[in-house]
Every structure is written in structure tokens, then in C-alpha cells.
């Protein structure tokens, strides 16, 4: 039975609470997450400010969050949750925000290479079941058009036996394709 005095929380913070179980009201803005975050200096809003914006529940602030560089620069290093006195679990919140940002077509242009790399990475798994590093590099270069990046790295890796020419294919690739079709490639 739904409680008539309890309306559904449609703010982004409410969706975070509902979907990943992270309660942002617990944050009292001590800033330890931002102090420990290794990339807060690269971010447009450090983690504690992202949370503050979400706490307001105002559409313009939520828009800032979904369009921020911050959510893409997050390394998922888990330092924030390790040091948070209130155990506000920021990494799953970041995962959720990234998913929403892509879904709503709001990803920050500064993150385009990071997203292209993730997509090239997943493509490799979808096709072979494993990560094929050589294929990943080529696919990423085609997607990002950074043809000259790291051109000296690959030959040295090859010489040291660190790069495989051919991909490793798992046997049950059908199972992997099924997993992709049931998740990230699901028809809505």
C-alpha cells in the first residue's frame, strides 16, 4: 500500500536513492571526498559539490551534474567512500549518473574520448568474449581519430611479447552476445 502522505521523490537524488540505494541527505559537506579525490582538480565540480547540487533538487543543478566533466573523470578509485564519515557511497552514484548522462544524451564533450574508449573496450568483449588489446587500440583510434597517439608504444610492446596479434576467442560467444542483448543492447 502506498502512503498517501508520501509522494514519490522525482529528483535525481531520489532516483539515486531508489536505484542504487545511496542516500545523499546524509552528506553534511565536510569535503573529505573532494580532498582525497585524485582528480578533483580536473573536475568542474568536486564530489562534495556534486552532492550539494543534487541535494538542492533543483533542475538547473541536476542538469549541471548530468552535463559535468566530473562524472566522467571519476576513476572509481574508491578513495571518497574510504574516507567518508557518513559512508555516502559515491562510486555507485557516479556509475548511475554516467548511465543517465549517456541515456539522456547529456555527456560532456570533454569526456568523448573516455566514452569512446569504454565503448571500444566493450565492443571487443562483445565480439570475442575477452579483451583483444590490439583490436581495442585500432578501434579506439578509428573512433577518436587520434591516429598518432602512442604510435611508439605498440612496437615496443610487440617486441617485449606484450601484444597479441590475433584475438583469443572464447567458445560460447553466443552466451556473451546474449548477455549484451539482455543488458546494454536491450531494445527498449
Amino acid at each position, binding site marked *: 500500500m502506498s502512503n498517501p502522505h508520501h509522494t514519490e521523490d522525482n529528483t535525481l537524488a531520489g532516483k539515486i536513492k531508489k536505484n*542504487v540505494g545511496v542516500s545523499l541527505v546524509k552528506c553534511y559537506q565536510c569535503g573529505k571526498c573532494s580532498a582525497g579525490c*585524485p*582528480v578533483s582538480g*580536473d573536475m568542474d565540480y568536486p564530489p562534495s559539490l556534486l552532492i550539494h547540487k543534487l541535494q538542492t533538487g533543483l533542475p538547473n543543478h541536476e542538469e549541471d551534474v548530468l552535463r559535468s566533466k566530473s562524472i566522467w*573523470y571519476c*576513476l*572509481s*578509485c*574508491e*578513495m571518497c*567512500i*574510504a574516507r567518508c564519515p557518513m*559512508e555516502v*557511497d559515491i*562510486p555507485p552514484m557516479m*556509475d*548511475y549518473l*554516467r*548511465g543517465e548522462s*549517456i541515456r539522456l544524451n547529456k555527456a560532456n564533450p570533454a569526456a568523448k*574520448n*573516455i566514452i*569512446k*574508449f*569504454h*565503448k571500444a*573496450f*566493450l565492443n*571487443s*568483449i562483445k565480439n570475442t*568474449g*575477452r*579483451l583483444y*588489446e590490439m583490436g581495442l*587500440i585500432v578501434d*579506439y583510434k578509428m573512433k*577518436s581519430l587520434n591516429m598518432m*597517439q*602512442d604510435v611508439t*608504444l605498440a612496437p*615496443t*610492446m610487440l617486441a*617485449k*611479447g*606484450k*601484444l*597479441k596479434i590475433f584475438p*583469443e576467442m*572464447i*567458445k*560460447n560467444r553466443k*552466451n*556473451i552476445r*546474449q*548477455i*549484451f542483448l*539482455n*543488458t*546494454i543492447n536491450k531494445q527498449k
Partner: protein
Amino acid sequence: MKLGFYPGCSLEGASREYNESVMAIAEKIGIELVSIPDWNCCGATAAHNLNKELSLSLPARNLALAEEAGLTELVVPCAACYSRFTMVQHELMHDEPLHKRVNEIIGKEYKGNLRILNVIQFIDEYVIDKLDENVKFEFNKKVACYYGCLLVRPNKVLKFDRTEDPQTMDIVMKKLGADAIDWAYKTECCGAGFSVSFTEAVARLSGNIVEDAVHRGAEAIIVACPMCHSNLDMRRKEIDKFNGKKSDIPVIYITQAIGVALGIDHKKLGLQRHFVPVNLKDFKPFVKKEIDVEKPQNMEVE
């Protein structure tokens, strides 16, 4: 003795020396590592950054296959794969509907009866007691043990070592005769999966780690994660550019260090595969000493 094994993609490719050294020490002490049949990639950062269900399902398929193969303990040397597996196991065991949903997606049933060990836990439980009788050389070097992120965080789920000043690798290295230094960057992030897509950040973060280790007189950085290794080793050109000076401190997997002490051929341990040459010589014959270390207590988790 047989244990389950998940190499992961890095160990089959760019970090094959990690695999070679794990296999070499396992063979030396008589442990057979059995790979999960038809294992797939864990999805790493890419999957959990883009789609939650995918990031749960890819590791879950491996865990289900391991159970099907009758494995009960699984050694996962890659810190990123270890983190994904442990997180997925934790989430599925604490969320019944999600567990059911993931079993449907993968078309298999993962029951959750698997113990997942990272490389240090593997060493701690199966290798360390056999060291005294097998070690030939003393690893008489000053080393900086670098844990990075995914072995120690989040502590609530992994329940492994201390999160701010972990000691397990330091203890292993001290047992081998090394001088494991105190330093400031033990658990700072190296930049992880951004090596290609955000290289400037990796140069800075890894640059700070290398700089601090060198500054405190370390002769080698000891790691247990293929991403930490490739960033600190293969990105040295970018690191040196960021620091404005050349550095020649090698980055060695803990399994390679153990292998060296066990007297295993350096080639077999893949030490020639590093970008930063490993020129450690003059290892003295090993003499067992009592070391003054206390095993770190795990943080209390309610």
C-alpha cells in the same frame, strides 16, 4: 594441491609476465592453478561505467562457470578483476531479486559458494609458509610496496588489510629480506583505466607515485596489479616528462620478487618484458631472520 584460477585479459596480453611469475612460483611450491573453462572478460571499468547489469553479469558468468567446474577457491591475481568479482558476489548475495535477474541474464545459476582470493591472500595462505624452506636469495633491496586502489578499497566489502596503511605486501617483502619503506603513496590511485583515454591525468598521478618512491630512496616499486604496473612502467616516458627528470626505478610484481628470491630464472619470471629495465643484482644467499612485524588487524566491520 589444486586451486581455481582466473587469469583475466591483461595477464594473457600486456601483463603476461605477471601470469608467468604467478605460474612459476605456484609450480615451485607444488600448487596447480586450474583456469575457469571458457572464461570471459570481467568487463572492468568500461562495463560498470556504462551499464550496471552488464557489469554484474560478465563477472557472474565466470563465477557460475567456476562453480560448475567444481572449484571452491578462486585465485584472481589482477586487482581489477578481483575487485569486480568480489563486488559482484557481495551485491548478488545481498540482493535476492537482483541475483535472480542476473542468473536469468547469464542463463546459468551462480550460487555464491566461491571464495575469491587476491594474489596477496593467495601468497599469505599458500606460499608464505613454504618460503623459509625454498628461498635461495635474499631480496636485499629497499622497496616501496604499492597497493593502489582496488586491493584495499572498499574495505567494507573486500575486508582485506588496512585501507590507509596496508601491510601485507610489506610483510612478505620483509620476510624475503627486503627493506620495505614507509612512504606516502601506498594507496593513491595511478590513473588506472585512463592510460589511453586521459593520459595527462595518468602521467600526473603515476608521476607523483614514482617521485615519492625515488625521493625516499626505494630501489624498486613492488606491485600486485597489472594496471598499476602498466601505468608506472609503460607510461614512464610521460611520467618522466611530468616530473621533469629521468627515473630508472623498476616496477616489479610481488610474484616476480618472490620468484627472484626462490632462485627462479629471471627470464621465466618475465623480468625482461618490462619497459624500465630491471637491473637488480648482487642478491645474497638467504639467511632466515626473525622480523619485527606485527600482522595488521583488519578494521572492525560491523
